[in-house]
């Protein structure tokens, strides 16, 4: 009995998902909902399979992933550089504070029309928007993290004769790693959101373009299948790559 309970408990999220899908299928099959707007699970699944079989989706996944990888890498590096700059030169941080506030005022995805207009409908505009989103998150996370490094550890290292360079190498950078990894985890979802929203507003390829094409042709199955691939990639990257990385990173959280 206890065993059955355990199995049921573990399976319950899947049962809920299956029930939702069945309800959706049933509602459209029995005329409770209009499949022209709602589509139906079987239609969407068939389309997803079709895209995989023909390889149609590959190119679009590739485009979105390239945009995210380039923007994410550049954004993380830029965010790290500026955060360290702010930390070691507090005067600069003080003067730049209003700009940081503006940067942080709203989710960066709303800047998509600006990016498309300035950098065109190619890949560049998406990379720049991803860069900006990731940059802001990395900067704020890391800068706050660095400021929280325990003063006692810094003072102890100083007493033992560490100069500014030793401090950076043996105290600040190891401490920062934990924050960098957590910023990387935080920003991946924002990176994909930025890329896809930007693609929705002006692109000729990519997962966001598929969704936009589905929207303008009133093909809900296209919208849903496109979003399915977008969601699948984010979930895979987040839970299979970054979550284990973060867990490993927190092991040697010494400061």
């Amino acid at each position: 009995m206890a065993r059955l309970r355990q199995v049921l408990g573990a399976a319950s999220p899947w049962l809920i998902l299956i029930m939702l899908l069945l309800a959706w299928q049933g509602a459209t099959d029995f005329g409770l909902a209009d499949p022209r707007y709602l589509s139906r699970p079987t239609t969407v699944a068939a389309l997803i399979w079709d895209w995989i079989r023909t390889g149609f989706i590959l190119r679009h996944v590739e485009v979105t992933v390239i945009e995210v990888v380039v923007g994410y890498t550049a954004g993380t590096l830029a965010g790290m550089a500026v955060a360290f700059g702010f930390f070691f030169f507090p005067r600069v941080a003080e003067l730049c504070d209003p700009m940081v506030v503006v940067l942080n005022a709203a989710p960066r995805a709303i800047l998509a029309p600006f990016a498309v207009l300035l950098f065109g409908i190619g890949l560049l505009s998406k990379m720049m928007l991803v860069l900006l989103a990731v940059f802001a998150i990395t900067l704020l996370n890391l800068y706050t993290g660095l400021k929280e490094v325990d003063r006692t550890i810094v003072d102890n290292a100083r007493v033992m004769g560490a100069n500014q360079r030793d401090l950076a190498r043996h105290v600040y950078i190891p401490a920062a790693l934990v924050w960098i990894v957590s910023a990387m985890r935080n920003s991946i979802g924002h990176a994909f959101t930025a890329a896809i929203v930007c693609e929705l507003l002006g692109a000729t390829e990519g997962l966001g373009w598929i969704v936009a094409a589905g929207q303008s042709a009133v093909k809900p199955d296209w919208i849903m299948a496109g979003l399915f691939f977008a969601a699948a990639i984010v979930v895979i990257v987040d839970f299979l790559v970054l979550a284990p990385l973060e867990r490993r990173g927190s092991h040697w959280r010494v400061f």
Partner: protein
Amino acid sequence: MRVVIERVLVSVALLALWQFLPAIGLGDRFFISSPVAVVSLIWEWIASGDLAENVWITAQEALLGLVIGSVLGAVFGLACGLNNAISRALLPLMTVGNALPRLAFAPLLIAWFGFGLSSKVVLAASVVFFFIFFGVYSGIRSGSGLLVANARILGGRGLALLWHVHLPQAIGWIVAGLRLAVGYAFAAAVIGEYLGSDSGLGYLIVYGKEMLDMTQVFAGLAVVMTIVGCLDVVLRRVGTLARR
């Protein structure tokens, strides 16, 4: 005080650069517009009443989404926080749902709920929901179990337990979630308007984009960011008050 003056000076210097760089041949006004043009367009919007009208529409969408998302998030958060069976069934779904790029779901919601208010409200609510859900859930779960057990022994039950023990422990988390949620509710409303609408701040911005009018894009974005920034400052004050 000196810092404030210096910050103002730096900002003014940057705005001056933006204004005068095209005059010496660096940068194209067509692409980067100019602060004077942006401010005078915003002034025009204020004078004609366009600004108030469109801000009101976007604010309505964001606030309705905020209220609906918060209520649902709080209900589900409480259920998952207080009951293990519910939490085991729902928490994995919530974790995955939270990781999804939800703002990108705007076209789907517009296909379902139309060009009007409701699609943006649903988008905003779906974004807000997860902030409040995890705020309430983590608030309850991270609270002291000892305190709850003691309150139970003293006869604390149901609503009284919730009000006097769980809520005070969770309030910091909830306020933090709410603060994030406000900015995202506005962003969701604006992005929803980008992808299908005939009014609102997002419509003004995306219309500017279609007309290749950078001044209008900047002006619309400036208004959105000012509103969200001001709300953030207010909520930060509320947060420090609530924690006392």
